[in-house]
């Protein structure tokens, strides 16, 4: 498992993600002010020792807003990621495995959800929610996951289709295994990397959607308080025009960093599944150390007669 951390992509992605998770956990308790809306200073103060990230148009502490807003952002993204992934596994794998009419219906459903414009759809659904529902995190997560499962389901269906024809599935059937057991114990374990990758992407999607919904004011911008809420208020108070860049830059950069960490993790999973990406060949460094100019070696096996110089090369047997 430690080998995974050797990849700089995974290490960076994981580091960033753990950092934000830490903030989500301890953020509210280390925030200078526990209420993000509390007026604590004069408006539009630039970042300083007193207000690390400046103050808002009403004199609220942006730093506190950011720390407090991390938890709902992350929690809602993760919950919708989990729900959407479970949906996509159930729907995608069973459609792929059983085929036939069920597959046709489920595929059609997935296609409909794929082409559905997500934001307008969510806004419409939101407007039908009871008053209290709009600030219910779990309900929000469920609604976001509704539009996030279809892509993963399609990918998993395709993977399952190829998996279903694998010999070990036939072998399990010959042993007398029941279909549901074959799905859960033979097929799904082999799909774990795909599911993980799909989960990471869904979390990314959910975060983007959640922030966007809050930003356009489709959901209650104050409860729960999130990065989207900050963007909403910064926008409605024309922070950009009056020089309050820090108000939207802070949550914006955080969204970007969290997104980057998820993408990096996804690359890492990819590399982990696909050894070809891992062993792209001899490192340039190793060749250079051995005295071979890499420009010479394009399409030509290098000849290195000197004592080989140890180089950090990951080897895959290609014989």
């Amino acid at each position, binding site marked *: 498992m430690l080998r995974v951390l050797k990849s700089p992509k995974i290490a960076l992605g994981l580091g960033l993600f753990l950092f934000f998770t830490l903030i989500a956990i301890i953020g509210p308790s280390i925030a200078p002010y526990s209420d993000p809306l509390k007026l604590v200073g004069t408006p539009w103060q630039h970042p300083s020792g007193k207000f690390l990230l400046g103050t808002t148009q009403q004199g609220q502490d942006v730093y506190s807003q950011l720390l407090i807003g991390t938890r709902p952002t992350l929690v809602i993204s993760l919950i919708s990621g989990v729900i959407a992934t479970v949906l996509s596994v159930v729907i995608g794998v069973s459609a792929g495995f059983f085929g036939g009419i069920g597959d046709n219906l489920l595929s059609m459903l997935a296609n409909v959800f794929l082409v559905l414009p997500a934001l307008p759809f969510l806004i419409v659904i939101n407007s039908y929610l009871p008053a209290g529902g709009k600030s219910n995190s779990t309900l929000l997560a469920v609604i976001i996951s509704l539009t996030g499962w279809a892509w993963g389901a399609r990918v998993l269906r395709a993977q399952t289709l190829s998996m279903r024809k694998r010999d070990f599935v036939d072998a399990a059937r010959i042993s007398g295994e029941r279909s549901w057991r074959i799905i859960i114990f033979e097929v799904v374990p082999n799909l774990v990397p795909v599911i993980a990758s799909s989960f990471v992407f869904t979390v990314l999607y959910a975060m983007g959607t959640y922030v966007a919904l809050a930003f356009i004011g489709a959901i209650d911008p104050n409860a729960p308080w999130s990065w989207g809420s900050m963007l909403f208020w910064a926008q409605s108070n024309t922070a950009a025009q009056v020089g309050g860049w820090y108000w939207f830059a802070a949550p914006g950069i955080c969204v970007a960093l969290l997104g980057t960490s998820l993408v990096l993790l996804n690359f890492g999973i990819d590399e982990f599944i696909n050894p070809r990406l891992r*062993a792209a*060949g*001899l490192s340039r460094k*190793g060749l250079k*150390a*051995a005295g071979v100019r890499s420009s*010479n*070696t*394009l*399409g*030509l*096996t*290098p*000849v*290195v*007669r000197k004592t*080989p*110089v*140890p*180089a*950090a*090369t990951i*080897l895959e*047997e*290609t*014989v």
Partner: protein
Amino acid sequence: MSGVVGNKRPAGRPGVRGDVVLEVTGLCVDYGFSEDAVHGVVDATLTLRRGEVLGLAGESGSGKSTLAYAITRLLRAPGVITAGDVRFHGQDGDYDLLAADGETMRQLRWSQLAVVFQSAMNALNPVLTVGSQLTDVLKAHRPDLDRHARRDRAAELLGLVGITSDRLSSFPHELSGGMRQRVMIAMALALEPEVLIMDEPTTALDVVTQREILEELVGLRDRLGFAVLFITHDLSLLIELADTIAVMYAGRVVEYAPATALFRSPRHPYTAGLLNSFPSLHGKRVAMTGIPGSPPDLRHVPAGCPFNPRCRHALDVCRREAPTLLELPSAGRRAASCWLQTEGYIPPEALALPEPTHAGARIVARTGALAADLRNSDPQDPQIEAAGSAL
């Protein structure tokens, strides 16, 4: 026009059958540089003569494909050639393939050293016709030919491998696997190479198709006089096809001998075991044993002789020290890498069978027949000729 393959050659060609055309000496190939580099090929020495079919036999991981790729410098990273010498004695001069630059290799590769790989039949471009793929090769390497000449030549090449010229306008997917593999052989022969390297060219094909292609290959070899390095795991096939056979195990050439001699009187216990792994098509059924254990992982090759854990004749010395490939007394040229065949040791009866008397005679007889065949062949009609020599 009517560029029959033989016509291109200068009348008094310097290359004579039996001359060495490709010489591999002490070739070592590693995968990677580090301390734990995998030794894919260790100290391989081979000689390929004009008009000869040299068979390279071995199981998975024996290094037989690595060797072929390394000779042509086509081995991809992390493969590195670490020692040895590969010399190509072409019509137009000698080449040191390991010192050659990219440009020289590129020119040599198709025109003089052609390669057909196992999956080659899937390497045809699916959106181009067979004819245009053949003419493209000619366009790139034979600028002196005009469009018509190229077309004729392409048709002629297909004729050589037993495909009628109406297939020129076919797309690869319209051809069977066997046909596509023939097209690949035709493409390899397009520039009249002196050496044809074939890596499991028929393994994916059915036996009947395989036999047809091999018969054609031998016929073409007889007529055109190129040399073939034929790589396969199927030793029983090689014994029929090849003049000389090199058996590889764990990256080393363990035995090298004329085909008949190898078959009738193997000198290395691995060769003997391998021969005893192919059930016969005739005679009384006898229980056979194969070889116990399995081929070694190249990352963990046993100390001493790499075959010793599977060898029933293994001695103490086999576990300590690796034997070297030693020339053995024989009518033909043969060598084995086994302690039992070195001075001071007495090999068991099974590894000391007398050689068949005609062991070395086969290639000579064939070569003589070829010369006659070449003289009598009608250069105007390659297709009839091809059919005639297809035995």
